[in-house]
């Protein structure tokens, strides 16, 4: 009981710390001028949700009224029509509206809403249509070390350091000490609560490495997203899509004969229905399952970021109607509790992604000879696994 309350206290302190730093970063970090109107808040939040090409910590106005940005630039690596181009993101001078043009290798580049465009050969400035789409520029393949990539690298290094040092501890003692004592139960949790029950005792060992990697990768990145550093890695479609496709490839490659049989030529149903079922099953396996994985993680994390930032923004948006103290108080209370929930969501989404990956893999490697029953007419009686799959 004591321990639980201590853990809770630590969690609370951590959350307060994160929250206070976040609100500090938010209230000070401004792209251009100050953020106070609803439109500016919307724009700021949408900008935050996107990936960015420089690592921006905060901005302030100096005595002369100039905006100063604190942060550091990141390398931009592009595959343009004239080959590979690299330069530092500071060349754009914090511009995000396509005004600053960077010329490299005979190509002109602009940054527009966190995306880098290459201008057409004869253009000297970006032209926009009514919907504010660039008409004389096209996107380039962007391999830049963006903020998300920095996050991935940091988490990757951290995981490699933490878990390889845990692995080294086992060489001379059977029970780890220090930080390893925290990590070991988590590893055991993923193995015993996610991998083993969903994949089965016979096959789980082969997939546990992937599941552990994905679980800790998502969880740590989710938590990193709650810090005032402003990472939103697991809220990037590209990242969640990559994770989902990894799962798709793993369960498709390791699927056994029964799995493909049930997908392509379902036994126990009239022959005419089988092709229809095959289409549905194929769509389920190759589109719906990975799509549900990638959208669930992306949407939950993005929504969390939007909600937390919107609640923090109450202190600007409701300043007129509630007064400074009222708006700040309301914003503090609401965003504090939402941040608490977000800490839970960070774990929950990592758990769900890993659990569903394990479940999909488990369905692909399950041995069906004993656990499928057929009734008198030869129809298959759905077992728990099939029923569970219908709910996902």
């Amino acid at each position, binding site marked *: 009981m004591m321990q639980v309350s201590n853990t809770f206290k630590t969690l609370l302190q951590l959350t307060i710390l994160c929250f206070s730093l976040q609100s500090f970063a938010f209230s000070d970090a401004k792209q251009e001028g100050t953020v106070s109107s609803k439109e500016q808040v919307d724009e700021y939040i949408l900008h935050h949700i996107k990936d960015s090409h420089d690592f921006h910590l905060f901005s302030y106005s100096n005595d002369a009224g100039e905006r100063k940005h604190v942060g550091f630039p990141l390398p931009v690596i592009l595959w343009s029509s004239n080959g590979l181009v690299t330069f530092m993101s500071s060349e754009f001078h914090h511009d995000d509206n396509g005004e600053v043009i960077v010329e490299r290798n005979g190509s002109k580049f602009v940054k527009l809403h966190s*995306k880098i465009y290459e201008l057409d050969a004869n253009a000297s400035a970006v032209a926009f249509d009514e919907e504010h789409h660039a008409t004389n520029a096209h996107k380039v393949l962007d391999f830049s070390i963006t903020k998300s990539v920095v996050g*991935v690298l940091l988490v990757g290094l951290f995981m490699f350091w933490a878990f390889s040092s845990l692995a080294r501890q*086992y060489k001379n003692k059977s029970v780890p000490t220090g930080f390893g004592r925290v990590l070991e139960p988590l590893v055991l949790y993923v193995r015993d609560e996610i991998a083993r029950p969903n994949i089965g005792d016979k096959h789980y060992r082969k997939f546990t*490495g992937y599941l552990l990697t994905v679980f800790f990768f998502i969880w740590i990145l989710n938590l990193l997203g709650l810090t005032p550093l402003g990472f939103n890695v697991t809220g990037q479609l590209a990242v969640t899509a990559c994770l989902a496709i990894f799962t798709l490839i793993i369960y498709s490659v390791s699927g056994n004969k029964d799995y493909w049989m049930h997908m392509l030529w379902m036994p126990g149903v009239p022959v005419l229905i089988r092709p229809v079922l095959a289409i549905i099953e194929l769509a389920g396996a190759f589109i719906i399952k990975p799509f549900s994985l990638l959208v669930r993680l992306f949407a939950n994390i993005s929504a969390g970021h939007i909600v937390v930032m919107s609640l923090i923004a109450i202190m600007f948006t409701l300043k007129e109607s509630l007064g400074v103290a009222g708006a700040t108080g309301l914003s503090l209370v609401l965003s504090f509790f939402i941040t608490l929930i977000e800490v839970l969501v960070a774990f929950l989404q990592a758990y769900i992604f890993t659990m569903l990956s394990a479940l999909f893999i488990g369905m692909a490697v399950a041995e069906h000879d004993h656990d499928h029953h057929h009734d008198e007419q030869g129809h298959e009686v759905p077992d728990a696994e099939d029923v569970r799959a219908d709910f996902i």
Partner: protein
Amino acid sequence: MDTLLNDFSPGLFIVQTILLLGLIFLLVKFAWKPILTSLNEREEGIQGALEAAENARKEMQNLQADNDKLLKEARAEREAMLKEAREIKDKMIADSKEQAKVEGDKMLKQAQAAIESEKKAAVADIKSQVANLSVDIAEKVIKDQLADKSKQLKLVDDLLGDIKLN
């Protein structure tokens, strides 16, 4: 949907794929494999230790039972030995009593036989002495009274009448 597709960055996707592949490979090789192997070994070790303890407990119980059995057997054997010793003692006493009795009887019989034969010898001796005496007496009587034939006969009859055999 349009915004989502616009936000999707193929470059980030490729970078993320490469990094994730590298991360999975490195972690599997340097972290998960040794960790899971060690955890498995440890769990098997614990399982083995528990089983060994259980076995030891059972063995201990068996040993205890064996000890009890041995003790019981020893006690029974002691009992039996004591009983046997008592029986032997009783038997020996009885035997010696019997033997003593037999020996005594035998000695008694021998003594009786000896007495009998002594008696017979004595009687025979007496008889012969009596006979001799008689003859002597008769001689003397005869010598004295040979004259009177009637007296001689009367004397013989008297003498004979006096002598009584046992």
